[in-house]
């Protein structure tokens, strides 16, 4: 214990309070939102890092809000598991801002929503109270719906409404589960719950099991497990390009973290293994999602939609790992949570960059990308390789531990599903890689740019700009061979405001790709962070 615990409530309170600042300043100044968000998220990165340092040096940090007894009041806790997620959330939130500076949705209200989202996500990672978790789930949900709807097209509002209805049902299911658990135990604090639940299970097993069932269904919806995933592809596809990286990277990850926290810290491995058919159900739901998500991803034509289905399958892997209830599987799930978040943030950011600079949104339109934009194509290839799980990359370490856990638990079908998911990931990644590197651009590219200029020349401002952007990109690429990327960049930057690729966007993609690879080498280190104290405490 050290004196950093005062930072815990600030992690949640500061972004939420500051989320009002862009609106207030917006009355006088036009573009202050980004600066406020950047300052706040940078401070949050510093705060979470300081807290994580303290956690890994001296053990969990906790703070009782208002000094209330944790049995009645709300306690904030940061331990070895949640510290990882808190740092991930803060770093992603700060990193994605590099993209939205030029490319993302603008306006001060957007950044208000962004800060609200960040505060909610940090709240999910630090809260030690099951009802408080529900409130943060809903705060994150609300901010996410608003941010998805900030897209330009009308489709985004439909996608957001669909997500709102399904997301609310999911959170409400969780709330019913909390109610049943509260009936059985009379407390909402996670730490106290873990102590009194075994006695409650003995008294009235049906009540606790019913509570678990509601919580499981609620989280299956929130984490997007097949067949409750239907909101996710629409939401990811129609959200603005600058929003998808943060939603895909940390929102689902925070939900999955919360589910893991409830499974292991509240219900505990003993309850999971002693309840008949419970682990089998969780593992089955996860495995079915892996298979269904990968198969659906293979048949998609839209790249963002394909990545969305890929998320369904990757989170299926994590849920299945939770259901295995072995130490290796749990470590694998945690590493895969972090690794997948980094990879997906990079992939969606890269998809956004490509949509702007190359005007490509479907798999077929990616043809010839590597010649035009070698840097983005290269980074995307690296990220796809990490997603497949080719060593040494973040995807490999997570899947390795999960497969190891499946073998330890003697559940061979799960090990086979992990292997199968790798093959299916290869199938849809290879489609993109093949288009980018081996299909020439000519049949699609040649008629593309001139035609759109010729047809809707004077009518539509937005379209002309897009075409002009693509034109400029072509010019740049045709020019110098060595500095293709920068030449194209300069050409576009000089060209106008909306359709530009900034260095910040490229930096985000490059940073995500490099992080995805280096996390592969750091896999053992990540496992070491969890291993000594947290794992022993949970599993013994």
């Amino acid at each position, binding site marked *: 214990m050290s004196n950093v615990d005062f930072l815990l409530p600030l992690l949640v309170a500061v972004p939420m309070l500051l989320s009002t600042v862009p609106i207030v300043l917006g009355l006088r100044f036009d573009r202050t939102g980004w600066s406020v968000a950047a300052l706040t998220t940078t401070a949050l990165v510093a705060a979470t890092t300081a807290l994580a340092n303290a956690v890994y040096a001296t053990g969990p940090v906790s703070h009782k809000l208002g000094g209330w007894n944790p049995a009645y009041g709300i306690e904030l806790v940061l331990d070895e598991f949640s510290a990882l997620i808190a740092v991930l959330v803060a770093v992603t939130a700060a990193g994605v801002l590099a993209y939205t500076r030029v490319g993302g949705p603008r306006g001060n209200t957007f950044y208000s929503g962004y800060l609200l989202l960040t505060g909610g996500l940090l709240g999910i990672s630090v809260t030690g109270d099951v*009802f408080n978790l529900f409130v943060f789930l809903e705060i994150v949900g609300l901010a996410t719906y608003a941010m998805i709807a900030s897209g330009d097209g009308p489709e985004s509002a439909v996608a957001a409404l669909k997500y709102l209805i399904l997301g609310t049902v999911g959170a409400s299911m969780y*709330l019913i589960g909390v*109610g049943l658990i*509260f009936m059985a135990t009379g407390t909402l604090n996670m730490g106290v719950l873990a102590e009194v639940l075994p006695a409650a299970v003995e008294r009235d097993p049906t009540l606790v099991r019913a509570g678990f069932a509601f919580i499981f269904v609620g989280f299956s919806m929130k984490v997007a497990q097949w067949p409750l995933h239907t909101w996710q592809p629409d939401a990811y596809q129609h959200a603005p390009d600058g929003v998808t990286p943060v939603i895909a990277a940390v929102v689902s990850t925070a939900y999955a973290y919360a589910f893991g926290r409830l499974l292991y810290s509240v219900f505990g491995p003993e309850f999971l293994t002693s309840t008949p058919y419970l682990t089998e159900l969780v593992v089955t739901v996860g495995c079915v999602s892996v298979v269904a998500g990968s198969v659906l991803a293979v048949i998609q034509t839209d790249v963002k939609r394909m990545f969305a289905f890929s998320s369904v399958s990757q989170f299926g892997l994590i849920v299945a790992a939770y259901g295995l209830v072995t130490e290796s599987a749990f470590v694998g799930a945690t590493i895969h949570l972090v690794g997948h978040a980094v990879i997906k943030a990079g992939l969606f950011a890269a998809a956004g960059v490509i949509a702007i600079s190359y005007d490509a949104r479907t798999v077929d339109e990616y043809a010839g990308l590597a010649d035009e934009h070698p840097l983005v194509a290269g980074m995307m290839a690296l990220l796809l390789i990490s997603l497949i799980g080719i060593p040494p990359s973040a995807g490999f370490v997570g899947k390795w531990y999960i497969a190891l856990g499946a073998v330890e638990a003697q559940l061979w079908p799960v090990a086979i599903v992990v292997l199968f998911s790798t093959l299916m990931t290869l199938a849809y990644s290879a489609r993109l890689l093949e288009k980018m590197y081996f299909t020439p651009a000519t049949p699609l590219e040649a008629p593309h740019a001139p035609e759109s200029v010729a047809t809707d020349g004077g009518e539509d401002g937005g379209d002309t700009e897009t075409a002009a952007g693509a034109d400029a990109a072509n010019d740049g690429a045709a020019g110098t061979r060595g500095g293709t990327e920068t030449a194209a960049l300069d050409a576009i930057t000089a060209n106008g405001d909306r359709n530009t690729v900034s260095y910040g966007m490229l930096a985000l993609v490059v940073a995500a790709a490099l992080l995805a690879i280096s996390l592969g080498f750091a896999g053992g280190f990540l496992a070491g962070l969890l291993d000594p104290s947290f794992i022993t405490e949970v599993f013994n």
Partner: protein
Amino acid sequence: MIELELEILASHYAYSLLFVLLGIGLYMMIANENLVKKLIGVNLFQSAIFLFFIAMAYVDGRAPIIEGKSHSVGEIASPLPQVIVLTAIVVGIALTAVGLALIIRIYAEYGTLREDTLREVRADE
């Protein structure tokens, strides 16, 4: 047997009402084509949960006002579920507001509130 069931129904009628309301809300969300009615279904679904929390905290006795002396368990209603319901109501209102805002935008863009018409309009585009 029937007497026992009737007794359970008489003492636990709030819980049966909860599941009836949950079912109606869920059915409205799934089956109703009108987007506003879908949102009303979500609200009904949430109200059922509020009712559940209040029913669970009910005891024959006094309101949770503690005047310094200690009370035995079961004498006074637990204030925690009521606080929870208050918070959940606030969350529900925020959700309804966001949902209605989205519906207004959908109506402005597509000129319809019905999901089947919306599907046709989107398929045409």
